[in-house]
Structures are given as C-alpha cells and as structure tokens.
C-alpha cells in the first residue's frame, strides 16, 4: 500500500506518504491557504508525488484531516438556515441552557442561536415521553411555513420535535415533505442526526449540521474531483471527531458535523501509533502550538472519548469526540505583569502575526518563545533548519521591562515565564487525570506539535510521569495519525427499561438493527468482509440519574453480566456504586470498524551516535546558570543511542530539552524515550 496523509493546520499543511512495501516515508510541508484549503492539500500531494517520482495511479488511498468545519464553527459562519419544530420547540435553540457565556460581563453581546427567531417556526404536533402521539401533526402548516422560509432565502432546514428519539414519525413526515417540495434544499432532522434525549443539544447539533453541510459538502466533492483530475482515483478518507476516519461520501450531509474536531483527533491517534510498538498504552499527549496546548489522555491504547462537546461559543454539540482539553498556553503566549504585581503568561498570544519579538515580524511583547531563545534552548542562530532567523538580542530587550519590574535578571525573568507556563500545563494535566481518577505514574507523556518537547521533560518531572516519548517527527504526528486511524462508524438507538426487568426482545431487535445497518455501511465503504468489526455497548444509569455510563458488551450477553460491569465501571469512574439501586438501560450502541493495515516504515538497529555534538550555552536552573550544553541533531541519533542531560536535541520540526539527571534513548523506530533512570 502507498498512502498519503494530509493534515491542514493553521500555518502549514503537512503531507506524508508512506510506502508499506518499500517501508519509506516522504514528507512535504506547504503553506496553508485558509481561503482555499483544498488548494494547499493538492499542492502538498503533488509535491510529494514530484519528490518521490511516483505516478498518481500508484497511490492507494488519501487520508485528510481538515479544520474547515472547526473554522466555520469558530467564526459562526453558517448558511442561512430555517428551523421547523413541533409544539413547544421554536425557542429551544435560542434559550439553550440559560447559562451565561461570560459570568462577570454585564455588557456582553447576545449569543448565537444558529438560526434566528424569524426563521424558526413551530407547528401543532406532540409526541409524549413514551412515544405515543398526544397531538396530531399539522403537516399543512409545516408546508405553509416552509414556503415562507424558502421565500425568505433559507438554504437549509433543521427539523426538531420533542421525543423524536423515541418516535420520529412527526419529524420524518416533515423532513420527507421538505425533501419532496424543495429538492434543492438540504434537510436534517434531529432523530436522524443525534437520536439522544435532551432537546437543546439534539436540536443544536441538528442545526449545526444543517447549516454546515451545504458549506462542507462542496469542499469535499471539489477535493475529490481535483484529486481525480490529477489522476488520483483512489478512495479519499476524512478524519472524524471520534478518532476514526470516514469515506468522503460518508463525511458529508448528515455526517458533516462529525468533522468539527477532525484536526486534533489525528494527533492523538498518531501518538498511540508511535507509542504502541514500545508497549506504552497509557499516554498523556501534549501538543503545544503557538497559541494553545492540547492535552489528550489515552488509556489502554484507546483515546478517552466523550459524547458531547461545547463549542467555543458555548453551543453544545452531541457527537462522539476525543476528550481533548485545550488551554491558552503556547509559544506565542505573552508574558505580562498585572496591576497587582503578579507575573502572568497568556491567555493573550502574539500568534503567528506579529509573532514573538525574536522573529522580527513586528512583535513587541515578550513571549514564551522569546524566553526559550534567550535561554539558549531554541537555537539562537535560527529555526526550521535556518529558514527562520532569530534575533536573540531583541528577545533579551523584550524581557528587560519585566525583569526590571520583577527585580530579576533577564534570564531569571525568562526562566520564570517558562516555569509559569509549565506550571499551568501541569495543572491542566492534573485536572484531566483527576476527572477520571487516573494515576499519572502509569502514563507516558507524548510530546507533539512544534513546542511540546521543549516542556515535556520538565512537566514529567513535576507530575511524576515516569517516561517521555518524543516521536521521530512530532510535528507530523497528526499527518501520520491519519494513516494509522481505522475507519469508524458509530450508531445508537435509544431504549428505556429497567435493568432488572429487561425487555430482551427489544434489546435484541435494537442490536440486530444496529449490526445490520453498520455492516451495510462498512460494505458500502468498500471494507472487505474480513476487515469489518463491530463492538456493542449499552448505556446504563441509576434511576434518577440524568447521565448514563456506556458499558461495552457482547451482542445478546446476559444483562446480569452487563449490569455487574456497570456497577464496576461506575465505581471506577465515579468512586462509588450501589448494587441495591435500580438501574435503567437507556441506549444500545455499536461501533463499526474498518481495519486497515498499520503503516510500516523502515526500522533500524544499533549504530552509536556518529558525529561529535556541537555545544552552546544553555541556561539550566538545575545547573545554576548557563552551561556548555551538547546540541544533538536528531537525525544523527541512530537507534540504540543513549544520551544524557543536560542536552538539547534539535530537528527540523521541534527542539527537545533534556534536563540534567535525565537520559534519552533512541529506539528501533527512531522514537526518543526519556526517563530519569536511564541517565548514565
């Protein structure tokens, strides 16, 4: 297999080509084009083909992680939508949870309702909690309203009714009518998009889907067409928020909103792929960029997932997504002293423009990157292999004000800024772990992104994490993660019954239905029979609880067994359980997997480090100031090599800081594993 992964980031679009037979990997980095992201994707692929000399027809698959949906959501940029609801539903989207976006701002602006009130209507029709119809649907009223909305320029319809996850008769009837009357307008209804209880998240997810799909679908189909025009007739897979991929055909329409967290998901999968050969199954992934840091947790080689996700504007999206915590701390985070005299780092970032002072692109505020340059950790001669020149003097000057205010030397001030950011990151990791009762001593910290490896060892030290893994190419973790991801398809059906009086026939019918639909999907997606896998689960909760726990199970497994596991899981996750309390079964779930071969690249055995490293003065607090520190080139460190801190390891896309007392070893896959014990 020859596969290409393309990950669109804010600044660069990263492309990798892995040839499983030749066991080689080729890499291309091209500037992103925020207005036309597909052009950058195509440029990157063509560059790869050009450099490897492979014909387009030799490529077996293209995998793509995109930020287009994320950006549309962040910018609040949707098509003009209309909402048709049944009785009582008109204002659900606008009232939301009734919680305030900002608790202390009395002069804040109204939050987005996604679809404004004049384009939201409700018509007679009501389903009760048990699924019975208590008011008949007035389909004529719905048709009248729809005509008016279309005249008003509506380009997409979202349809919502209470308890449609139990009985979707009303919603389906409205959707069918709309599709027949207005075949050119996209229609999504809530039981189809997100068949889960709680009207606001369900309707919000439906409205996001309806108003995103008409924007995203052309992007996906244009990309497919352009690839085809260039002779790439292979399948195109898109990364989904759930950490799996989907075919291009299944990344549009009712699935379009699944792309909202496409970008960060691939990085976590890449980390799992990098760590697995070494038997590291519990991971904390730390991806540090210019403005923010993403923290993910992986347990037993599975990323932790959640069923909902608040968008930056507070709108809840119900979809399976990786539990990734983002904090406003990155290389561009600005250091400042507040009116009380406290040193603070971020949340304001100099970003890429104007950027850190030392890049000389107009930045005037001292950033974390300036501090790292000043301390000699980032190469003061230049970054990106010399493509990016650096002005160390300017970085020093930028810190002079803060240093004076704090009555510290410039170096101590810079060191302090790094220390404060690292303390904030450590705190965020601790909180992520506390949420599930994880013991960090069982984890490996995986450094990802351009800046993760600068801080990883210090963080591991603070947090008591025994190992740090710096993958061979941390900056390409997302792009390689795309190639390592499996195809994934999630489906669920709501149920409602007591676990001690289970309706076995209903569970079986639900599981049969889910299995049949999932296998059909996998078949349509071109997954051969022997590569299809399904995993079942049931959602359970104690009576009176509102949120459920998803318990993996076998199809047709005895409910007593599942119930036992529910108590255990509840105990593990929440710290208590109660076998005496009644539990309810509230949903049946399935995951359909399409397995691909893991990408294979050449592994090597045992050379020792060849060239004598250069040295430069780097500040280490442990050493009491500047010390002549060996600077290793990562590509010169062959498998089997061990080095001791203090040291700096430089490579094109990242810089690793190895603290005194720590040692690093390059393993067979050219990953660098750092720990305290291995220091010679």
């Amino acid at each position, binding site marked *: 297999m020859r596969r290409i992964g393309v990950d669109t980031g804010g600044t660069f679009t990263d492309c990798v080509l892995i040839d499983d037979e030749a066991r080689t990997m080729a890499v291309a980095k091209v500037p992103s084009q925020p207005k036309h992201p597909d052009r950058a994707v195509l440029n990157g692929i063509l560059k790869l083909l050009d450099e490897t000399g492979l014909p387009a027809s030799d490529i077996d698959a293209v995998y793509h992680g995109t930020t287009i949906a994320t950006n549309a959501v962040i910018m609040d940029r949707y098509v003009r939508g209309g909402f048709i609801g049944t*009785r*009582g539903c008109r204002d659900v989207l606008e*009232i939301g949870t009734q*919680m305030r976006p900002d608790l202390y*701002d009395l*002069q804040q602006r109204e939050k987005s309702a996604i679809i404004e009130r004049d384009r939201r209507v409700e018509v007679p029709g009501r389903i009760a909690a048990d699924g019975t119809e208590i008011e008949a649907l007035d389909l004529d009223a719905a048709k009248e309203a729809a005509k008016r909305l279309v005249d008003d320029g509506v380009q997409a319809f979202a349809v919502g009714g209470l308890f449609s996850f139990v009985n979707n008769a009303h919603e389906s009837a409205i959707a069918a009518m709309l599709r027949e009357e207005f075949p050119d307008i996209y229609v999504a209804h809530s039981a189809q998009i997100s068949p889960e209880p709680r009207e606001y998240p369900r309707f919000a997810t439906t409205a996001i889907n309806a108003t995103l799909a008409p924007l995203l679908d052309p992007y996906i189909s244009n990309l497919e067409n352009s690839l085809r025009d260039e002779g790439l007739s292979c399948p195109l897979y898109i990364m989904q928020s759930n950490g799996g991929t989907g075919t291009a055909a299944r990344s549009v329409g009712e699935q379009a909103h699944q792309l909202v967290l496409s970008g960060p998901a691939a990085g976590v999968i890449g980390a799992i792929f990098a760590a697995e050969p070494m038997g590291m199954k519990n991971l904390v992934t730390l991806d540090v960029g210019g403005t923010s840091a993403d923290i993910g947790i992986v347990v037993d080689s599975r990323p932790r997932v959640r069923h909902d996700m608040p968008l930056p504007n507070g709108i809840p999206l119900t979809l399976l997504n990786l539990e990734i915590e983002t904090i406003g701390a990155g290389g561009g985070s600005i250091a400042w002293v507040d009116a009380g005299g406290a040193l603070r780092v971020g949340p304001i970032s100099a970003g890429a423009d104007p950027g850190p002072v030392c890049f000389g692109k107009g930045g005037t505020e001292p950033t974390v990157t300036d501090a790292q340059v000043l301390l000699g950790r980032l190469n003061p001669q230049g970054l990106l292999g010399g493509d990016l020149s650096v002005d160390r003097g300017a970085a020093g000057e930028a810190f002079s004000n803060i240093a004076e205010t704090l009555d510290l030397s410039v170096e101590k001030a810079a060191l*302090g800024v790094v220390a404060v950011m690292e303390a904030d990151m450590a*705190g965020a990791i601790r909180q992520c772990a506390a949420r599930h009762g994880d013991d960090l001593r069982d984890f490996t910290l995986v450094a990802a992104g351009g800046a993760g490896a600068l801080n990883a060892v210090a963080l591991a030290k603070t947090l008591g994490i025994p190992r740090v893994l710096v993958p061979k190419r941390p900056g390409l973790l997302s792009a390689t993660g795309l190639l390592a991801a499996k195809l994934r398809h999630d489906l669920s059906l709501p149920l409602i019954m007591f676990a001690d009086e289970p309706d076995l026939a209903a569970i079986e019918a639900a599981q049969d239905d889910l299995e049949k639909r999932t296998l059909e999907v996998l078949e349509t997606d071109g997954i051969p029979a022997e590569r299809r896998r399904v995993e079942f689960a049931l959602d359970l909760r104690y009576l009176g609880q509102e949120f459920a726990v998803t318990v993996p199970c076998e199809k047709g497994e005895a409910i007593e067994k599942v119930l036992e596991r529910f108590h255990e899981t509840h105990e593990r996750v929440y710290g*208590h359980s109660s076998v005496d*309390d009644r539990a309810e079964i509230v949903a049946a779930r399935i995951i359909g997997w399409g397995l691909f071969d893991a990408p294979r690249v050449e592994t090597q055995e045992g050379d020792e480090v060849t060239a004598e490293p250069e040295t430069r003065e780097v500040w280490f607090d442990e050493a009491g100031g500047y010390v002549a520190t060996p600077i290793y080139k990562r590509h010169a460190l062959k498998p089997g090599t061990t080095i001791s801190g203090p040291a700096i390891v430089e490579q094109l896309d990242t810089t690793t800081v190895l603290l005194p007392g720590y040692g690093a070893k390059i393993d067979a896959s050219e990953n660098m594993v750092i720990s305290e014990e291995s220091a010679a």
Partner: protein
Amino acid sequence: MIDQVTVAVIGSAFRATVGEMGEALRRSSHSPIIREMFDYSCAIFTAEGDTVAQDDVIPALLNSMVMALPELLKENPLPTIKPGDIFIGNDPYRGCTHTPDIHLFAPVFADGKLVAWVGNLAHHADIGGTNPGTEGFANRSVFEEGLRFPYVKLFEEGKACEPLFRYIENNVRDPRSSLGDLRAQVAAAKLGVRRMDALIEKYGASVIGSAMTERIDQSERRVRAAIAACPDGKSNAVGYLDDDGCGGEPVRIEISVEIKGDEIVVDFTGTGPQMEGGMNASSTAAMAAVMFAVKAGFDADGEQTAGSLRPITMILPEGSAVNPRFPAAVSLRHLAAQRVCDTLIRALAEINPKLESAGAFVGFSSMAAECRHPRSNLPVVMSDDLGGGLGGHTGGDGLSAVDTYLGNVGILPMEICELQYPIRIGTTELAVDSAGVGEYRGGLGIRRVYEFLDTCDVVFYTEQTNPEFAPWGKAGGRPGRPAKLILERADGSTMDIHKNRVLVQAGDKLIAVTGGGGGYGDPKARDKAAIARDLREGKITAEAVKETYGIEPAELPQAG
C-alpha cells in the same frame, strides 16, 4: 522577600489543586445538584483562614468561605486542631451561607505547626427541616432549616467520627445521596491536604506561607488600583423584595456606596428589618453579592482572594434583612442576595461605567415538586429554576433567557422532566413583549408551561411579580415586565402564585412567565432596523411597537 516567579508558579499549583479537588468532588458526588449543576466550591486558605485560591463555578459561592474559617478558629483553640482532622460546619450564624451548603475544612501541618487550610462546600439536596430540599420561603427560624453543624470534627486525626455520620443519616430525607456527597467532599479535602503537603515538601513551609501572603496582597493591589482609577464619589440605590416570605410588606434594600481613593464603603443602612420568612441574606450571602459586583466592576480577569475584600468596608446593620439576628431563617438567601446584587450594581454604575446597564430579572422563579417517578413509582423530587432577561446596556441589548448575576444554573430539559417526573412541559419560549424597551432593550424572559400528570406536592416561589419592583430601566429606558406564575386547575379555575406550597392534581397546569430585562436609553433613539428585526422575530408585537416606541409598524424599514 519571595520573588514573583515563585509566587506565580506556586499560585498556578494552588489553582490546579483547587481545580483537582473540584474534579474529585464532582466525580464522586451523588446528586445532580453537584454533578450537573456545579453547586460546589473548593479553596485553599492561610493558617489564619484567609482565602488564597478558590475555583469559580457559581458566582454566588465566590469567596463565600472567607467568613467561615475565622469562626472555626474562634471556637477551636489551636492546640485542639490536629493533623488528619476534618471539621464540618454549615451554620449561617457561624459564617456559613445557608444550611444546605455543607462546609468541610482540613488543616495542613508542617513540622507540627498549622500552616494552611483546605476546604470545600457543596450544596446538599436536603439536610432535613420542614420542607423537602430544606429551603423554605415561609420558614420562621433557622430551626426549620435542618441540621446545623458548629464546626465539629467529622474526622479526628484521620479517623471518621462514625456516630456523626449515623446521626446525619438518620435526619435527612435522602441519606444515601447526602452521605455519598459528604464522602466525596471528604475525598476532595484529603486530596487537597496531600497536594499541599507535597508543595510544602518541595518549597518549604515558609516559602509557601510567603507565596500565600503575596497572592493575597496582589489581589488587594489589583482591586485598589481599579478603584483608584474611578473618581471619588458617593451614590445610593434602593431596591425591594416583593414581600417577607410570609405575606408581609415589601422589604427595602438600601445601599450607599462611597469611593474614597482606593477604597469603597458599602453601607446597607436603611435596609429593612429582618424578615419573618426564610429569604434573609446571612451576612455571608450579602458579601457574596458584594464580591460579584467587585469582580465584575474592578477585577474581572483576576483571581479573587481574601485580599480582594480588603479595600471594601461593609456596613451591615444588625437585625436587618442582610444581617439578621439569630435565629432568623435564611435558607432562601439567594432571593435577597440577587436583589442586593441588583441594587449594588445600580449604585456602583454611577461611579464605574463597566457596570452601566439597566436592571436584570432577579426573581429566581423556581419550583420543587415531591412526586413519584412515572415508571418506577419511587419517590423523587423535581426542581427547576427559570432565568429571565438581563438589562440593556451602553453597547447593546440585554441577554435573553439567562440565569442572572449570582446564579448560573441550567434549565431543566423538557424531555428529562417528562422522562423522570410526572410533569410534562408543554412549551418553553421567549416571553413576547417582556423586554423593557429603550435605545437598547432588555433581554426577554421565559414562558414555560408545566402540566402535572399526577399528584405532586409543589413549592413554588418567585420574586419580582410586583410591577413596582420589576427590572428597572435606565437613562430613559423602560422597565422590563414583571414575573407571573399562574396555577390553572383542571376545572378551569386559576390562581396567581407568588410563593405557595400546593398539592396539585393530574390536569393542573402552572404557567410561569419570568421577567424581561430593563431597557437602556431613550426608546425613541432605538435603531429602526432593530425594532423591525424584533417585530419580524416576534419578540415584540405590533401593538407594543406602537405603544412603546410610538411607531406604526408599516413605517419600519423592510428586511434587506
């Protein structure tokens, strides 16, 4: 002197510890009030009981533990406080908020010396007393408000005081969830002590002590600097509660504020006497309202510590509705606290333009229903709080349908209500014509209709039904519409509800309409396109456009 880098790094660790305690508390709590509604708070204190770091989940709990620890220390001499102890308290007459908020405090020792405290509070669904859920508008004294713990040891040198657990178990309505939540609080407190021990081991007790002191000083300096940036001056505002919870006269809240240099004096002199019923604000609750205004007006992105309060002098007349004498009832203190907050913002806005806005809905329309689960027939208690409109302000219209000021609680989803309780919600919509008009109008209130499908014992209450005390307009803007609760019986008869406890039957309905925010600025100055948009969106009716803005709808610009 300690350097600012060390202060910031230790400060970040304090913040993380407080966050970690919160995650641990929430993760193992039993009741939705903690797990889904986030009604809890965790903090770190100096040995003397000054807050050093606290999480920020619900504004009502901001700095709410600052008055508790000094009381604890008053009653428990130092030699009796030992490592491994955990104290329990909830007495509003010993610096706590109201009885359902159970506070736990654990001392942190280094070399045999008390060097810090960690603590947390969590709102318990019930702690006994007259009413289910403990809170009651008509409670005549705190003796109707359940168990009161005078900072006794729940754990003594690491050993649980089992008789106390059994005593609690025997006196609350839902012992499983109360004890479960209490154990979650204990786990969080123990985690906090472990983290503090580790920090002390790393940095030493004296550095930790200096970092605490400096953090407190930093927040004091931030608030002082922001106050000093406002011109000196005096202003005054008056607000009213509809009644005293027992059908009495409106209750006056009067607040004078004076800015002098970098200090503020908040004087409640003129506030009415303590109420017969349960809506009195304990002094801690009054202070929470003051903290909200201070943070919103003077230190929105800074962390609050005991130092944030130092530039502020509060004068709380004893025996008044904001500092009642023992044993006045205080369980529904949030109703008075919201009104205090509203009145204080009105006064402070004269001096600080960041707070310049019209009045918000502070009526807190709520219900709690004891009923039976529709499928299992087990007893359950449903509760729901409805928000309303925020006031219009200098930069735009007020937010619609939000839990305002000190609250930030989610609305009960219609589907969850009908699945879990014998109560069907027919509609939840924006209350048309409820917003006060102005150049910038207030936000709209909520209209929600509950249909009872079975017998339920329901406590209803709301404030701001009296038009005189509706969300006020400002700078020429008009007031928002007051709240209204109507009980429509199955036989067609109706009754207006303000604060009632009623046994409702299947077929009865409650129609709850909350208040809209006040308008800001002259309605005549409102952008015509904005009026047209409100009309097109059905947020205002054509009649109301004519009546309030004096404009014929036909004269408004068409949508373009």
